[in-house]
């Protein structure tokens, strides 16, 4: 006897993970190499976390801002198929334009109302050379930007942590300051595993209970056991 399940095709829920990367001239050399290495290094663990959470479909994209603002990975790639292609550094730091590009993709559509809270990770070593404040305001008009888990990593002491704090918009989540390659690897791995894990199975929350996001992301990464050298 036919026992076909009622309803159409089933689907797990999309979890958009977007890197927003500073590729300005000041990132040239060791910083950009470290960033390429750290992201590539994080992929296996990110895939493992995605495998452990079959009810979420982790989709990765990447924006870069430097000589130009563009999608380094334009089409959302299932993390199972995600491969990292190295980025090159050069140019200014048009972080505001990167926010505008991001905002366009967080509208409904192309986002759907059933997605899981996106994870947005901003990594920069400097300060915006364009109008970040207005662009950020526009970004935060989008419902999915407000509900996203927004994280920020500063590469070196010269990064404008006030801007990163603004992007995060949550007093409980501080910018992660990476002073060397080992710390960067650690932070990127945390963002792409522990945070993805938390965002994959969020519990229902009271509306507007928190100012930003609605995913408890747990303990921030501890770097006390890592190399403390200030390289950048």
């Amino acid at each position, binding site marked *: *006897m036919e*026992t*076909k*399940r*009622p*309803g*159409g*095709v*089933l*689907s*797990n*829920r999309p979890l958009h993970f977007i890197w927003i990367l500073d590729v300005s001239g000041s990132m040239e050399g060791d910083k950009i190499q470290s960033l390429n290495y750290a992201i590539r290094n994080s992929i296996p663990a990110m895939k493992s976390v995605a495998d452990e959470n*079959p*009810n*979420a479909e982790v989709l990765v994209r990447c924006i870069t801002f430097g000589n130009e603002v563009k999608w380094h990975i334009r089409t959302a790639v299932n993390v199972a198929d995600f491969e990292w292609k190295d980025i090159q550094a050069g140019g200014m730091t048009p972080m505001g334009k990167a926010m505008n590009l991001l905002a366009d993709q967080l509208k*409904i559509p192309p986002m*759907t*109302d*059933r*997605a*899981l*809270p996106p994870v947005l990770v901003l990594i920069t070593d400097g300060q915006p050379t364009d109008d970040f404040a207005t662009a950020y305001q526009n970004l935060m008009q989008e*419902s*999915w930007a407000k*509900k996203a888990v927004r994280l920020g990593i500063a590469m070196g002491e010269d990064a404008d942590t006030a801007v990163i704090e603004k992007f995060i918009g949550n007093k409980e989540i501080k910018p992660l300051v990476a002073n060397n390659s080992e710390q960067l690897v650690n932070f990127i791995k945390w963002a792409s595993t522990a945070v993805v894990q938390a965002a994959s*199975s*969020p*519990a*229902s*929350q*009271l*509306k*507007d*209970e928190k100012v930003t996001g*609605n995913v*408890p992301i747990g303990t921030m990464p501890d770097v006390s056991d890592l190399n403390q050298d200030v390289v950048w």
Partner: protein
Amino acid sequence: MWQIIAESVKSANHPLNQDSKKYFIPKDKEYVVVAIADGHGSKKCFRSNVGSEFAVEVLINIFRQHFSSNTFDNLQAGFSGIKDNLAKTIHRQWMEKVRNHLAKNPFSFEEELIDVKVLNNQVISYGTTLLGALITKNYIIYLQLGDGDILVVKDNEVTRPIPKDENLIANETYSLCDKEADSLFRFYYQPVIGQLPDLILLSTDGYSNSFPNDNEFQKTALDYNNLYKEEGMSFIRKNISGWLKDTTVHGSGDDLTTILVFKTSDNESATKRETDNTN
């Protein structure tokens, strides 16, 4: 006149099912009341399974009382005035139940440590949504607070008496534990003109979140309706638990609860005795 199936499956990701369901059909089958509630899964809402149980109990009792006193008859012009009082009554009675429960079951030491905000406003720990319907020969009242779905099938078309709330994304929802919850209820009063709907489906958000879009989800209602006509109630009853488990495993991974109210022909016996079933 009606046949009902209520089913719920627990998510593999949750230690316990925080959804609740309840329905009532009187002996004379003059009307049906159905209710489901989805207790929030957040860490702060650690008593939401109790809160959702209270929610469905309160709604069933209130709708029964109002039906008995004919409150909702001939309301085409005046339901808006009544719905505010209805929302306030539901909210107040749910709060009373929660406070009584808290008085008899104060927070344990472990519960007190979970969150200081909850310690200061302990009702939060019982947070839940609520969906329900009072179905009579002359009118149907649909009610919703928070996320979840109500679908209606009539003449092979699916409609939503209460539209989806575009403000509720990213697992955020309105809740009975909100101090202003009575202002967040949504109602739809529908006088019955011609035939009653063939099927009314209520479900927690774990069901619709298991499909890539609303069209794929709405096929569930059409499929249940066709299965009812072609295979009968016992077939659905036998299989529904497996279907729901399959849905949550390959879909949202959430607790999943649904109530299906099928219209029967007049000579079919829907229920042989008074039923007050929480399953």
